[in-house]
């Protein structure tokens, strides 16, 4: 059984930056015995796509077992469901708030994002639409979007007026 550590969307974040890897880590839950910690890790990391410098936006649920000191990064919402159940409604708002903080800090020229799932079901895409809208509000526009050969939806976004 996991109990919430997070009770509302944080108003500000601690931003970690390390060699082009800019991240925000938000505690979500702990297991009742306190031996397992669960957090949301939101990332805007420098990457290169076909030789073009850009930043990749992604987020993961991170699970740490304090007894074995093992860490797992979960990108599949079904695999993460049990760990985040008591705070599930806060996760997407936290992703969007952290995205704002990261993008406003880094101000990348181009942001790349792709679904983890291949052939993602429509209900999972609504989450991505909300994230896209959040980045649009920060002065970006979708430069390209589509489905890659693996069936993953992707978005390339650039600062408005930089097309």
């Amino acid at each position, binding site marked *: 059984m996991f109990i919430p*550590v*997070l009770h509302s969307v944080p108003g500000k974040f*601690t931003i*970690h930056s*390390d*060699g*082009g*890897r800019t*991240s925000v*880590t*938000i*505690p979500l839950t*702990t297991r009742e015995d306190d031996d397992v*910690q669960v*957090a949301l*890790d939101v*990332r805007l*990391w*420098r*990457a*290169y*796509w*076909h*030789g*073009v*410098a*850009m930043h*990749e936006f992604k987020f993961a649920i*991170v699970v*740490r077992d304090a007894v074995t*000191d093992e*860490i797992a*990064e979960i990108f599949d919402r079904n695999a993460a469901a049990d760990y985040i159940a008591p705070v599930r409604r806060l996760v997407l708002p936290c992703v969007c708030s952290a995205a704002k903080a990261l993008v406003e800090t880094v101000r990348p*020229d*181009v942001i*790349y994002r*792709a679904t983890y799932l291949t052939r993602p079901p429509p209900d999972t895409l609504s989450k991505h639409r909300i994230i896209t809208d959040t980045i649009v509000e920060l002065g970006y526009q979708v*430069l*390209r979007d*589509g489905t*890659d*050969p*693996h069936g*993953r939806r*992707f978005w*390339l976004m*650039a*600062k408005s007026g*930089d*097309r």
Partner: protein
Amino acid sequence: MRPKADAVNALNWPDYEGSMPLPSIVRPRGDSKARLAARLHEAFETAKHRQTV
């Protein structure tokens, strides 16, 4: 490396649509477990501190 969005537009997209993006994206080396653990530890310590203040 070309840092601007117009560099993306300059790509010949038909050449790439069939091969993107997994083989084509080059990421920094993955987050080390130690760095991730340190971020996690700090985040939980901060949350604990907020709860006790």
